[in-house]
C-alpha cells in the first residue's frame, strides 16, 4: 500500500511537472485585426494575441514606412486600450504605406504576426455623430418631426480637409409585434438636421444617424433617439376628407344627370354647330317642301311666274339645234358638264345622236329680235349688243343674280343633287343673238308667264331669251338618268330653279 501511494504520488508529481513544463512555450502568433483612422489625421491598430505559452508575454508593434527601411516602434500603446497602438498626428503620414508587424515575446521565444500594409486614406472611419435629438413640430396642415445632430468632435470639416456626409434612419417601434419593422434610410448630405414629414400618428419612432468622410467607411450608428407622435391630429383631417369626397361625388352625379337630360342644348352650347352653306334668302327647308313661290319670293320680287315645281332643280339648258348626224363634231365646241364619270361614254353617244341645234335664222338680214325679260330687281347686267354677236364668237360666262360671273362647277353643286349625271352639251353652230336688256323693259308684261314655248334660251336665272318667230325646234336636255325626248311642237324644258347656263361659244369652223 505504501508502494501504491508512493507510486501514485510520484506519478502525480511527474504529471504535474510535465504539464507545467509543457505549458511553457514560445507564444503563438498574434494577429492584427484592424486599423482605423477616425479623422484622417491619426490612426490606431488593434491586434489579438495568440496563445501566450503560459508565460508572461509582451507585445511590440514595429512599423516601416513605405520606401525606407528604418523600423520604428509604436509611439503609444495605451491610449487606445489593450493590445492597441495609437499613432498621433506627428507620426501619421497620409498617402504612404505603413508596413506593420506585431511581435509577441516571452521568455521562451518570439512570435511575429503577419505584416499588414496600411494606407491611412483607406482606413478612414469616423466616430458617429453626436447629440442626436428629435423634436416634433406641430403645424396645422403638415406636421413633421425634426432630427438634429452634431458632427463627431474630432473630424475637421471646416477646413476642407474632409468632406462629411450623413445618413438618417428611422423605424417605428412595435412593442407588441414580434417581427421587426424595417428601417427607412434617408441621405442627408452635409446638413446637420433633417425633417421627416407625415409621421404616423400615435407611433413611436426610433431615429439614428451615421456619417462618412470622403469615400471612407460609414461610422457606427449613433445612439437612438425616441419620439412619440401624438394621436389626435388625424381625425379632423379624415372627416374633412370624407366630406369633401362625398360632395365631389354628388356634384359629379348631378352634372352627369343634367348632361344626359339636356344633352343637345349643352352640346350646342359647347360645340356650336357649323352652319351649312346657305344662300341668303333661300331656305332649304322651303326647297324640300316644294313651294316655288316661297323660294322665289325670297330671291326675287313677287310676281315671278309660277312654274311647275320639281324638287330638284338641276337646270342646265341645252341650246341645241337640229343637225345632221354627219356633222363633224370636231369643229364645234362642247361644253360638257359632267357629274360622274359614267356619263362619259353615254354623253358622247347621246350628243351625236341628239345633236340638235337651234339655229336662229341665220340670214344676215334677219335679225331675230329677241326680247328678254328681266325679272329681278337685282339684275343689271347688260348683254352686249347684238351687233357684236353675229358671226363672232363670244364668250359668255354665266351670270348669277348680281351679275357676277359664276363658274359652272359651282352652279352645279348649288343645285340640288337629284340627278347623278348631268350632261349638258352646248353646240353652238349657228348664230345666236340676244337682245339688249333694258331696264325700261321691265314694265312689259312678262311673256313667259303663260307661254313658255317662246323661250329659246336662258342666260341667267333671270333672263330668258324669247323668240318671236320660231321655227320648229326643240330643246333637248340630255340627262344620263332621264330619258327625255324633245317634243316637236313645244318646247319643254326643265322648270327654272336657279338657272345657270354656261354658254361658251367658240368658232370651230
Amino acid at each position, binding site marked *: 500500500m505504501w508502494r501504491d501511494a508512493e507510486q501514485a504520488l510520484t506519478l502525480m508529481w511527474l504529471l504535474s511537472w510535465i504539464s507545467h513544463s509543457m505549458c511553457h512555450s514560445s507564444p503563438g502568433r498574434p494577429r492584427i485585426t484592424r486599423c482605423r483612422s477616425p479623422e484622417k489625421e491619426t490612426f490606431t491598430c488593434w491586434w489579438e494575441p495568440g496563445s501566450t505559452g503560459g508565460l508572461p508575454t509582451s507585445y511590440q508593434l514595429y512599423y516601416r514606412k513605405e520606401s525606407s527601411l528604418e523600423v520604428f516602434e509604436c509611439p503609444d500603446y495605451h491610449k487606445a486600450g489593450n493590445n492597441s497602438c495609437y499613432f498621433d498626428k506627428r507620426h501619421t503620414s497620409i*498617402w504612404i504605406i505603413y508596413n506593420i508587424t506585431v511581435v509577441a515575446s516571452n521568455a521562451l521565444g518570439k512570435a511575429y504576426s503577419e505584416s499588414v500594409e496600411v494606407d491611412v486614406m483607406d482606413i478612414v472611419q469616423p466616430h458617429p455623430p453626436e447629440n442626436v435629438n428629435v423634436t416634433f413640430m406641430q403645424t396645422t396642415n403638415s406636421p413633421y418631426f425634426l432630427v438634429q445632430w452634431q458632427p463627431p468632435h474630432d473630424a475637421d470639416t*471646416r477646413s476642407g480637409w474632409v468632406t462629411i456626409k450623413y445618413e438618417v434612419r428611422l423605424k417605428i417601434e412595435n412593442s407588441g409585434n414580434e417581427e421587426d419593422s424595417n428601417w427607412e434610410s434617408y441621405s442627408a448630405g452635409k446638413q446637420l438636421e433633417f425633417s421627416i414629414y407625415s409621421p404616423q400618428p400615435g407611433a413611436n419612432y426610433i431615429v439614428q444617424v451615421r456619417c462618412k468622410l470622403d469615400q471612407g467607411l460609414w461610422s457606427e450608428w449613433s445612439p437612438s433617439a425616441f419620439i412619440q407622435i401624438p394621436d389626435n391630429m388625424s381625425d379632423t383631417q379624415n372627416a374633412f376628407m370624407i366630406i369633401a369626397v362625398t360632395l365631389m361625388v354628388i356634384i359629379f352625379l348631378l352634372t352627369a344627370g343634367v348632361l344626359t337630360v339636356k344633352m343637345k342644348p349643352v352640346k350646342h352650347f359647347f360645340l356650336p354647330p357649323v352652319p351649312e352653306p346657305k344662300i341668303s334668302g333661300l331656305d332649304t327647308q322651303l326647297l324640300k317642301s316644294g313651294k316655288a313661290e316661297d323660294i322665289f319670293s325670297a330671291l326675287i320680287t313677287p310676281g315671278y311666274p309660277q312654274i311647275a315645281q320639281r324638287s330638284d332643280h338641276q337646270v342646265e339648258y341645252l341650246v341645241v339645234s337640229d343637225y345632221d348626224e354627219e356633222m363633224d363634231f370636231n369643229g364645234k365646241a362642247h361644253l360638257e358638264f359632267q357629274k360622274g364619270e359614267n356619263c362619259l361614254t353615254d354623253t358622247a353617244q347621246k350628243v351625236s345622236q341628239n345633236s340638235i341645234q337651234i339655229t336662229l335664222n341665220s340670214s344676215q338680214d334677219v335679225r331675230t329680235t329677241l326680247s328678254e325679260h328681266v325679272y329681278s330687281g337685282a339684275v343689271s347686267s347688260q348683254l352686249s349688243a347684238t351687233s357684236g354677236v353675229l358671226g363672232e364668237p363670244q364668250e359668255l360666262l354665266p351670270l348669277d343674280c348680281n351679275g357676277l360671273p359664276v363658274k359652272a362647277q359651282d352652279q352645279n353643286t348649288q343645285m340640288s343633287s337629284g340627278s347623278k349625271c348631268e350632261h349638258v352639251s352646248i353646240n353652238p353652230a349657228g348664230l345666236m343673238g340676244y337682245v339688249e336688256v333694258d331696264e325700261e323693259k321691265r314694265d312689259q308684261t312678262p311673256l313667259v308667264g303663260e307661254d313658255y314655248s317662246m323661250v329659246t334660251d336662258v342666260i341667267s336665272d333671270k333672263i330668258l331669251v324669247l323668240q318671236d318667230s320660231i321655227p320648229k325646234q326643240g330643246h333637248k336636255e340630255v340627262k344620263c338618268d332621264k330619258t327625255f325626248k324633245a317634243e316637236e311642237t313645244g318646247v319643254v324644258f326643265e322648270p327654272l330653279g336657279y338657272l345657270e347656263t354656261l354658254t361658251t361659244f367658240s368658232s370651230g369652223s
Partner: protein
Amino acid sequence: MKKTTVLQVCVAFVLCSPQVMTGSPVDCPDQDTAGTSCSISMEKLLERAVQHAELIYRVSEESKLLFDEMLISNGMNLHIPEGNMCAPKTVPVPLSKSEIQQISDKWILHSLLILAQFWIDPLAEVQASLENYENAPSALLTRSKWMSTKLMSLEQGITVLIRQILGEGSLTLEGLEETSDRFVSSNILETVRRDYSVIYCFRKDAHKMQTFLKLLKCRQIDKENCSLF
C-alpha cells in the same frame, strides 16, 4: 405696333437680366494680361477644380476596384507588393495635414501641377494597353479614357489658378520624368502589373490632388474658418 415693340423689349430684358444677375463676375486683373480676355472669378475656378478632382478620385477608385475584380475573375492572384509600387516623385509632397497646413499656397499649387502633369502620359498608356486585354470590362475602359481627358482639363485649370493666384506664367515641369516607364513588355504578367500599379498609384495621387485643392479653396475663400498655419 407700339405695344408689341414695348412688349418685345420687356421680354428681352426679362430674359437677359437673369443672365446679368447670375453671370460670372469677371476679374480683369492687371495690365500684364492686356489683350487677353477677362477670366472667371477665383471662387468659381476653385469650386470647379475641387469638383473635378473629387470626381477624378471617385472614378479612379472605381477603376481600381474594377481592375481588382478583373484580376480575380481571371484567376490572376497577383500579390502585388504595394509597398514600393508607386515611384516617388522627384519633388517631395507634404504628407500630413499639419505639414500641408504649414506650406504656402504657392507650394500647394506647384505640387498640384506636378502631380497633374505627371500622370497624363501614364494614363494614356494604360488606356491603350487596356484595349489589348482580352476580357477587360468595358466600364474599366470607359473610365480610364474619361480619367485621362479629365486630368488634362484639371491641369489646365491648375495652370489658370496659378496664373490668377500667383501671377506667374506657365510652369514647366522641372523635375525629370523617368521615361523608362515606356516599356512594352511581351510578358503579360509584367504588363498587368504595370497597369495595375499605374491605376493604384494614380488613385492615391488623385486623392492628394483633391485634398490639396480643398484646402486651397478653404484658404482662399473662407479665411476665417480655415485653420491656418
